[in-house]
């Protein structure tokens, strides 16, 4: 378990403020945010490398705020791996074992190294120097090294940034499997929301040194609480505008209203009036070639500007006075013979429009 309690960290003239977060025992949490949002600084604060201005860090209910990194019992995998260049793969992996609390003898150490090498499929590399290793191999060695002293907490700083896409997928799968087998509480940093969707139980979106939103990846993706989060996690179309109450419908907590913005007027269900952003997920827009009656409250007429096929899904870039992205299965796209210039109608339920 990791609990961060109102952390405030200053590095140079960058501040990380009001960071509170709890990762349950055995949980897998991801911190995501754009470059410069303070993700790495946050990990370093958890590891004990960065000095806290305020706040406390708990691990398994122990307050470790004042402890140096070596007494926090955690493993840290750095973005650039940082293998020890003067040691072989074997000695890199074994480095932390000799210094771990339940001091292990030479045989026990060798045993643990072999066990990890086997688990991560790097047994053949053990006697190699670390210089010639590929990105994926280095990644595995760094992971084995961090896991060797059996830490109860694992910190990962963009562990897949330096490997190519194909290797990344394999490693991601392995890491998730490893996490489940070893039951380590894991905190990972990434700038890629896809990774959060695939890996995490819990995600916190960092923006300019503060947590903009946290929750399960699903929650954050479906119900972003701000235009920033919606854009960052790629929920879909984000339109700035104003919500007005429909005169006939009032006195209720949620009311039917009208959203005007980006050249569009949309029927919405709102909880308050005033300037807001409308977030529309591409898959909530139903496309048809001609207007026909259905239960959806909003019908947007426009033309197809461009098609973007991403595997089984096709993103349809619409021009409805402003750009709007809808998604359909590639099969439907082919059946409807969509191509640039075709006029279509996008239908959208009032309840599918998220106002933030």
């Amino acid at each position, binding site marked *: 378990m990791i609990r961060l309690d109102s952390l405030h960290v200053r590095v140079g003239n960058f501040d990380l403020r009001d960071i509170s977060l709890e990762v349950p025992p055995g949980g897998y949490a991801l911190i995501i945010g754009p470059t410069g949002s303070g993700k790495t600084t946050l990990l*370093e604060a958890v*590891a*004990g*490398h960065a000095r806290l201005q305020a706040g406390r860090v708990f691990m398994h209910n122990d307050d470790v705020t004042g402890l*140096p*990194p*070596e007494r*926090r019992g*955690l*493993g*840290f995998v*750095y973005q*650039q791996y*940082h293998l*020890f*260049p*003067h040691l072989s793969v074997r000695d890199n992996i074994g*480095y*932390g074992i000799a*210094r*771990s609390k339940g001091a292990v003898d030479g045989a026990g150490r060798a045993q643990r190294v072999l066990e990890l090498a086997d688990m991560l499929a790097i047994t053949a590399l053990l006697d190699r120097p670390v210089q010639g290793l590929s990105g994926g191999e280095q990644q595995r060695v760094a992971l084995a*090294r*961090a896991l060797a*002293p059996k830490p109860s907490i694992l*910190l990962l700083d963009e562990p897949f940034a330096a490997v190519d896409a194909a290797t990344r997928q394999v490693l991601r799968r392995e890491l998730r499997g490893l996490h489940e087998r070893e039951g380590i509480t894991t905190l990972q940093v990434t700038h890629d929301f896809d990774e959060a969707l695939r890996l995490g139980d819990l995600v916190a979106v960092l923006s300019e040194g503060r947590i903009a939103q946290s929750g399960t990846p699903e929650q954050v993706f479906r119900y972003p609480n701000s235009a920033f989060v919606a854009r960052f996690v790629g929920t879909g179309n984000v339109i700035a505008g104003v919500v007005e109450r429909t005169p006939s419908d009032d006195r209720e907590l949620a009311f039917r209203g009208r959203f005007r913005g980006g050249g569009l007027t949309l029927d919405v269900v709102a909880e308050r009036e005033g300037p807001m952003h409308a977030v529309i997920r591409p898959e909530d827009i139903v496309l048809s070639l001609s207007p026909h009656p259905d239960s959806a409250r909003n019908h947007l007429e426009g033309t197809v500007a461009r098609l973007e096929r991403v595997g089984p899904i096709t993103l349809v870039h619409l021009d409805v006075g402003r750009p709007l992205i809808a998604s359909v299965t590639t099969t439907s796209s082919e059946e409807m013979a969509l191509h640039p210039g075709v006029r279509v109608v996008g239908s959208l339920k009032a309840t599918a429009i998220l106002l933030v």
Partner: protein
Amino acid sequence: MPVSSLWSRLVLAGLSACLVLFVVGPLLRLLWESSPQSLIEALQDSELQASITLTVLTASMATFLAALLGIPLAYLLARRPFPGRRIVQGIIDLPVVIPHPVAGIALLLFLGRRSPVGGALADLGLEFVSHVPGIVAAMLFVSAPILVSGAREAFRAVDPQLERVARTLGDTGWGAFRRVTLPLAGRGILAASILAWARSVSEFGSIVILTYNPKVASIYIFDRFTAFGLQSAIPAAVILLLVALTVFIMVRVLQPQERA
């Protein structure tokens, strides 16, 4: 490759070759002047033997002191941002630009009996002027910057993140330094020490002012030259040159392969 570049390459190569020849020419010429016999004879001269022994001992002592005091300083300069770091860095590099006789005079004033520091040390039995410690002091003054800057670069070349990694693996700060940074910077520090040792051996201008007698090798050569002329100084000069070359090759072998 365009044709024009051939011409520009020739100019580049020609100018460069002039400089290389100007450096290597005098040294080859000096080696040419000596014969194995003359060197063996010269080595049997007890005065030269004594001066070479003295040079090696004092240079080693100066290097030891420079390493003892300079490696910690190099580490601080490379790794810890402290107030005034740039000024300290500047001070430690100063001796490189100070004319050697000026350094000698400054040391003479600082370590002489009449100065507070020199006086206090003299009362403890440590005399500098015209004594062996004066040689060591002069050598330390001119060679410490070389050791410090070499060791500083060696420390800088070690990724500081590696120490952080070692600490998350259970090492204390000192443990991480000893098991990670020091082994990785070791070759660079050794090369810097050898270079500092060579610089100590080569020093003349400040030692000639501080401690003419007993004579280190460079003073012995100068003394022979002024007293008996060029020919009489050559064998000793060749021997010192060979020592310098040996040291130099050692440093080259130790230094990490250069970038392309």
